[in-house]
């Protein structure tokens, strides 16, 4: 399991943090693989989805 750096406080603007939790194709890495706690995983998932809406992160690698 790869070690991840997760600060105590983060939101959808901490792209360096969130990029650790998406695959090359843009998918969110599941909690059983990422190895963080369930509460952390919920927050990460929400933050990634907000960042995607604001075009800070891609939904997929198939964008034109």
């Amino acid at each position, binding site marked *: 399991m790869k070690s991840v750096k997760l600060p105590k406080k983060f*939101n959808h*603007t*901490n*792209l*360096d943090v969130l990029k650790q939790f998406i695959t090359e194709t843009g998918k969110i890495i599941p909690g059983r693989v990422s190895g963080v706690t369930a509460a952390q995983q919920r927050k990460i998932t929400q933050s990634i989805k*907000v960042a*995607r*809406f*604001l*075009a*800070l*992160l*891609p*939904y997929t690698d198939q*964008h*034109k």
Partner: protein
Amino acid sequence: MNNYELTLIVKQDLESRFDIFKESFDKSLSEMGFQIAHVENIGKRFLAYPIQKNNKGLYIIYQLIGSPSSVSDLENKLKYDNSLLRYLLQRVDSHSLSNSFLTQDTVEANKRAEAKLANKAKQDALEAQAKKSAVRDDAADAFQSPKNDQSSTKDDLEESAQFDEIDNDEEHSSQETEKED
């Protein structure tokens, strides 16, 4: 009174009139009864994917204090604002009153883009130089040995003819074997 965070993505076409847009937007916010606690002007940023065929957008993050009743007014205004690509109005527990990590990230990204451009310009210059010298070398070679080139092409032709003959022989032999069967 609640705390709200409003993120705007403004169309890139507005870059020249951006200050005017921001002033009028600030004014309408205060008219609706919002207090502006902090403004973060992030500036131009590459979008992760195109929105309405726009590849870049201007990002602003407002940290606002206001009453829930004025939120619907604001939502209405944002909904029909043609200069916006996206907006996100979130209620937050408390304001950070400082810049988010997005500013830093954007500054770094812009630096990287600039460095890339500079590198590319350098490489292009080098390649152009290399091409020039290569052209000179070619010209010199052609001047020195035009006869050698001709002889080599003749040899090539002869060789290929020999190969053809061999191929034909092989074909004949295979046909013969088939007849025998």
